[in-house]
């Protein structure tokens, strides 16, 4: 079920909230947890009911393993608990590898082998990582005891189940155990506001930019040679699409949890305003970054074991980060590029003025999105060549006529065939949309920094457009991060 679909907004959400608060009043905490767990399973099963069994099996196996690891740790049997932890992690990664990477690995070993045709279960990357965190936490004897229902509700909790944020058991389980059961007007209002602003990010902004990005990237994939402005506009549009899509989803998840009196961690903090790549990764998909830092980078040795090893650790972490996003080389290349950026950033011994540093960082991030989005290596090269001006530079005749100076850098043509709807006014249309989108990401504070008054204004300017998109736009575009 999609957060921005009519069945969710008009059916699931009101019923889930009402049931939760009603049971909280009449039947107590355990009944509320059971209700949330069942509702979350229904939410997950809406997509493909048989995979609920996989989720349930994964939850049950990890809970049993976690409890056993904890018992061993408390009994002082550290080696045994570590062995069991290794088995548990291997089991989770094995499941993930089978469903997500089997075909990819098979085609590396045997490029001509037929596809295994394995169907990727929704959200497997997210619930696997969260359960790995639970297992790792279980090795510490001081880990709090958790009942099965609380644990199962934590893993399946619908606000974060599908696309994060990657929440930690120690942050969420106590909240579920001691959650305020009655509706809290402040939490409801803040939660609904954040949810609606996330909805607007997704429906009003991300989906608008998706159309522009798809036009350019699909044309490049079909073999068209995009000119300078077409290629840059597509890359800039995709950069905005993925940001608004994912941060919008995260805001919706945070808002939904808040309505239920649960607080999720922040997942995005204006990442495109970063002054270097390291800062970018502290602001972009923060919960994944923190997971990779705490459970991959630091266990590998982090920065404590020599320059070479440090570089290798950093690169391995970023390649893994790329691979987490999908089983394809383009994601590995994207992760590798960010690894290189981080290495360059560490080696760079001087500080640039803020506008220059921010521009360079943004440029590097936008360029890295090209292989991430392009359907093939050829399409990515073609896009990058277009962005470098190797396929020429065209602009609509009416623009060159209005601004003759542009005639120095561009050839006048009737329309740009791979920009927007390829109409006479597509260039000003896409330009205006991009200016608005980049204005928001570069100049405005993020939703969680806004004051109540500013949030109310943001809601006033976006709510009607969101309603237009939900009830009157003829399609629903899934979230980009559903694939990861």
């Amino acid at each position, binding site marked *: 079920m999609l957060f921005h679909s009519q069945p969710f907004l008009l059916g699931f959400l009101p019923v889930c909230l009402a049931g939760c608060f009603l049971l909280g009043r009449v039947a107590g905490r355990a009944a509320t947890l059971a209700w949330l767990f069942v509702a979350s399973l229904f939410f997950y099963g809406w997509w493909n009911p048989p995979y609920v069994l996989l989720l349930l099996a994964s939850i049950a196996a990890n809970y049993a393993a976690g409890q056993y690891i904890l018992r061993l740790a408390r009994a002082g049997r550290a080696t045994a608990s570590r062995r069991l932890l290794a088995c548990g992690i291997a089991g989770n990664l094995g499941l993930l590898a089978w469903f997500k990477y089997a075909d990819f690995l098979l085609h590396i070993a045997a490029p001509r082998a037929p596809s295994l045709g394995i169907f990727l279960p929704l959200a497997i990357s997210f619930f696997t990582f969260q359960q790995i965190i639970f297992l790792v936490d279980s090795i510490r004897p001081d880990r709090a005891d958790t009942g099965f229902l609380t644990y199962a509700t934590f893993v399946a909790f619908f606000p974060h189940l599908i696309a994060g944020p990657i929440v930690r058991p120690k942050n969420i389980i106590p909240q579920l155990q001691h959650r305020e059961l009655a509706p809290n*007007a*402040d939490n*409801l*209002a*803040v939660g*609904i*506001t954040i949810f*609606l602003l996330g909805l607007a990010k997704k429906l*009003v*902004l991300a989906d*608008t930019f998706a159309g522009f990005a798809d036009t350019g990237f699909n*044309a490049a994939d*079909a*073999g*068209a040679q995009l000119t300078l402005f077409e290629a840059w506009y597509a890359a800039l549009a995709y950069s905005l699409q993925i940001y608004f899509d994912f941060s919008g989803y995260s805001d919706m998840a945070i808002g939904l949890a808040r309505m239920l009196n649960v607080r999720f961690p922040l997942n995005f903090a204006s990442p495109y305003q970063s002054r270097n790549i390291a800062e970018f990764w502290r602001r972009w998909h923060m919960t994944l970054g923190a997971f990779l830092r705490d459970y991959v980078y630091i266990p590998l040795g982090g920065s404590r074991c020599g320059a070479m090893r440090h570089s290798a650790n950093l690169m391995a972490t970023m390649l893994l980060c790329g691979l987490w996003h999908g089983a394809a080389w383009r994601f590995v290349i994207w992760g590798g590029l960010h690894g290189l950026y981080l290495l360059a950033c560490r080696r760079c011994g001087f500080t640039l003025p803020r506008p220059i540093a921010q521009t360079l960082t943004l440029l590097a991030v936008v360029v890295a999105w090209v292989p991430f989005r392009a359907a093939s290596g050829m399409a990515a090269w073609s896009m990058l060549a277009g962005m470098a001006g190797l396929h020429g530079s065209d602009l609509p*005749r*009416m623009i060159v*006529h209005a601004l003759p100076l542009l005639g120095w850098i561009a050839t006048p*043509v*009737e*329309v740009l*065939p791979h920009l927007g709807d*390829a109409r*006479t*006014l597509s260039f*000003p*249309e896409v330009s*205006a*949309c991009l200016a*608005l989108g980049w204005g928001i990401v570069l100049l405005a504070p993020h939703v969680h920094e806004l004051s*109540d008054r500013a949030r*109310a*204004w943001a*809601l*006033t*300017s*976006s*709510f*009607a*457009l969101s*309603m*237009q*998109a939900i*009830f*009157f*736009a*003829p399609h629903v575009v899934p979230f980009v991060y559903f694939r990861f």
Partner: protein
Amino acid sequence: MEHEGAPEQCEKRQYFGPLLRLSLACAASLVLYVACFAVVLDRPLSFGFLHREIEARVARGASINGPKLIILAGSNGPYSHSCATIGPLLHLPCVNAGVAIGIGLDYLFLRWRPLLHPGDVVYMPMEEAQYTRGRAANALGPDAAVMLHNDRATLVHLPPARWMGALFSYDLRGALMAVIETALVAEDFHDPRAEGTGESNAFGDHVGHTAALARANASVLQSITPYHPTAAQICSGYGSLLIAGFIDWARAQQVTVIGGLPTGFADSPIPDATIRAIRVIYESHGALFLELPNRSRYPRNAFFDTADHLNETWQTIHSLAVARGLVPLMTLNREQDISNSKAIKRTSERAAGPPAEITSNTTASTVPPPGPTP
């Protein structure tokens, strides 16, 4: 009592205050949206252009007394068909009433119904997407905004779902374009479209989209991969439902409807099953159907800018083929009308039994339609 009630009220206000503020922000957003897009903002260059095109065609249709030929389609109508060519060959005044594929068929039919009279002929070479277009997409086409700003008289005759669609037809892109277009018009913007793509003549035909101008679009035309819906999609489409309803209405008004195929690339033929499904919509409701031997397919270099728009040279060639194809169908239809009325007369004289029904199979299917090969 008052003293006891006041703190309770205050508490309630504090409790519901945040939710009230939230509701007010949402309500204000809806009010602002409606005020902006229904009253203040318009898109004079895009929707204004469409409005002028629709009104010019309707005005020509209204000015014709006596039988006439109306071509109803999307932009395939004016770009690939020429009333200036077809009309004289059929000895009928002709109006090329199609404007754009996005115009809702319910709106198009509603505008033309009052202008259609017994003896009129409507030729409908609809684009495939017009059959499959869903109800939601239909409610959000450019006609929604056109009606909201310029034609509320027609809007009130459509179902309430269309009012809401018209009221909420602007998305972010539309909102920004409204500002841009209004500013351009205020700056006395010179619209370059006529120089680049041609313009409409008095019949509603698109003219000036020459083969020379089409050369600028050659690479685009080469890269287009047309999409053809399946027969099932045609059968279940909302557009098909509207077309069937229109045919039923036309039959009752003794207006002849002849279905047809849209123009398209010869290297991308419409699947047989899809053509059969289109044909069935017309024939099962008692209309005729014209299928040219080449199924209205032409080489890519015959087109102007999209897979639906022939260039001016081929527009004339196709129009000649359509005219030659329509002649026998219209003759046959007249003969059937006469025999039908005779049959009705006979049966009414005998005062027994229903009038003989014209079976569609004996109309279109038995006539081998002529036409050029590409």
